[in-house]
């Protein structure tokens, strides 16, 4: 047989170390996992949602673009459709504005007020925003409309989470 004979004591030592090691690993692994969990979590809200809008079809006239995502409200999950007003500005860059009025959260729309056809209009308290989303002084809204960050993938417009307007 082999030259190296394993004594009973050695055999027991090996098996105990092995089993003990597994047990220790079994206990420590979840702890380590919990400790680093926040790092492993995918960042929420950073992801972009696909719309049905083709990028090359965006004109200088603001148009409604709907996009749907799943929203979790406590334990109730629902499909939510969000809207953005998308157009190209004078420099040819895409602008995607959130339709939520900065006054009390109604939904604004482009040119729905016959007196101001080239402004965003809030039907609740007659708030007005210019085309770049800046509120018109003298109307109820206190700030400019939020802006959606956008990406272009395969010619399709993707929108991210609304951010406060930068300029103004």
């Amino acid at each position, binding site marked *: 047989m082999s030259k190296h004979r394993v004594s009973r004591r050695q055999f027991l030592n090996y098996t105990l170390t092995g089993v003990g090691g597994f047990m220790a690993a079994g206990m420590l692994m979840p702890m380590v996992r919990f400790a680093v969990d926040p790092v492993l979590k995918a960042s929420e809200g950073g992801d972009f949602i696909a719309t049905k809008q083709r990028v090359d079809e965006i004109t200088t006239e603001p148009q409604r673009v709907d996009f749907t995502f799943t929203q979790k409200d406590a334990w109730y999950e629902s499909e939510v459709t969000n809207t953005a007003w998308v157009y190209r500005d004078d420099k040819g860059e895409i602008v995607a504005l959130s339709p939520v009025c900065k006054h009390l959260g109604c939904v604004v729309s482009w040119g729905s007020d016959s007196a101001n056809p080239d402004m965003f209009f809030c039907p609740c*308290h007659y708030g007005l925003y210019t085309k770049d989303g800046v509120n018109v002084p003298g109307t109820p809204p206190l700030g400019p409309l939020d802006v959606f960050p956008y990406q272009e993938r395969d010619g399709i417009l993707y929108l991210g989470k609304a951010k406060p307007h930068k300029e103004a």
Partner: protein
Amino acid sequence: MRWTSSDMDMYMKEKEYVDTAVIPMLPVSFGSDMKQAASMAEFIALLTNQLERQFRGRLVLLPGYTYFKNDSEKSLEGVKNWERELGKDQFKHVFIVTADTEWKKHERNLSSSLIWLPSIPLEHMDENYKVSIIEDQVKQLMHLFIQKWRESE
């Protein structure tokens, strides 16, 4: 605004801007028209929910008024009670949204604006189709609301 505590905080703060209350009418029946009542309630609940999203800064969407379909006398009393109670506060406009034709008969006795819409059976509908149908209906409702608001100015 919805009938939730966080929205009520907003209401307290911005009271002067909120002048409209919406009561969705939700019929309940256990007779032969059980299914019809359920589909009406479903339709009205969906519709008013969407409406609230559009006009959340100016209206309060109250929890629906639930009533037994076969007991119209009593339900009418209940609605009048609501109207009295809402009139006390500063709701200049109270809208009752229903799919039940029964209310059309009582319209004269109500001080609020009754909006009747025919219920659309949504049960066999594809999700996308459902959404677009509700959206169309909401648009019509919005026009009605805006019109009423304009009239009172």
